[in-house]
């Protein structure tokens, strides 16, 4: 096959598939019986291809009960409405978030706990009731007022002087 013939190969295929042959190809075909024969052979192949291609898919037909089966399957799937599914999904997502948050908190708390040395814990231990003493005038609450004294260290006589 000459270089000229090789150059015409693409055009031969295009022409075989029904495209109008360009002038260059027509000129070449007039002078090259080999390419003219190749075009005839390719046209035959093209016809065969066009007759076979539809058979690859088009002989397939849905079975007579196909629609009934789809509707029945849709019935089964449709028993749970999209709204129900959406809420179920939302609930599941919320539960996942809650579990993840709890796990994260537990992890952080566990790490914080592990960092505190037991001795330090004892040193810093305070009775829960101490919290109540940490208020303004806490000192007053630590002393027991004598008879006639106010709990705020102001003598009754001072406040009630006018009664003497």
């Amino acid at each position: 096959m000459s270089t000229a013939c090789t150059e015409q190969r693409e055009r031969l295929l295009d022409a075989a598939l029904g495209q109008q042959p360009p002038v260059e190809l027509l000129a070449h075909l007039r002078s090259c019986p080999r390419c003219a024969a190749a075009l005839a052979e390719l046209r035959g192949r093209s016809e065969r291809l066009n007759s076979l291609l539809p058979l690859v898919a088009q002989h397939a037909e849905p079975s007579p009960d196909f629609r009934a089966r789809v509707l029945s399957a849709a019935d089964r799937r449709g028993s749970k409405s999209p709204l129900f599914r959406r809420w179920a999904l939302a609930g599941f997502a919320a539960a996942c978030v809650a579990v993840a948050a709890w796990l994260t908190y537990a992890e952080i708390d566990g790490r914080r706990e592990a960092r505190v040395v037991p001795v330090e814990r004892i040193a810093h231990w305070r009775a829960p009731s101490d919290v109540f003493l940490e208020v303004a005038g806490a000192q007053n609450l630590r002393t027991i007022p004598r008879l006639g004294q106010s709990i705020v260290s102001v003598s009754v006589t001072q406040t009630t002087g006018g009664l003497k």
Partner: protein
Amino acid sequence: MTRPFAAAVSADQNWRSAGPDFNRLIAENQRRVLQIAYGVLGNTADAEEVAQETFLRAFRKFPSLREPERVKAWLNRIAFRLALNRQRASRRRAVRDTTWHGDQPASTGDEAARANERLLVEQLREQIAALPERLRDVLQLSLAEGMSAGEVGAALGLPAATIRSRLHSAKKLLLERMK
């Protein structure tokens, strides 16, 4: 308590007004959807399963599927993708349908001709499977009856001109490989 689907469709006026009747949707599209799946899978049972799954997905989306043309493109696209997924999943155990046309009575001569044709179709299917993906997709989708370049393009998200060009390239490759 849930109503049977057929009753639900006919009774639920909201559904009716939301889109075309689902029952009619199946009737009008089942053949093409099946052929799209069959063009990829080459097996009727698998193709029917894909077609069924396609319509079940349409069933879920049904209230939001309004325009008939878009519904058609949507169905084509889903059927094609599901078929490709199934093909990838079952490539090892690919079983080709060899019983087609078997329901027609035939003389011995016809039988031989049909067997030969079947063989040629199977060879062609193998050649199609060996095409580059971008050409194969276009060709496989266009094999279903009545699929125009515009419809193939709508399913693949490509312009019709690109589809025509790729189809031509695919056929050229097949032509070269044919014996």
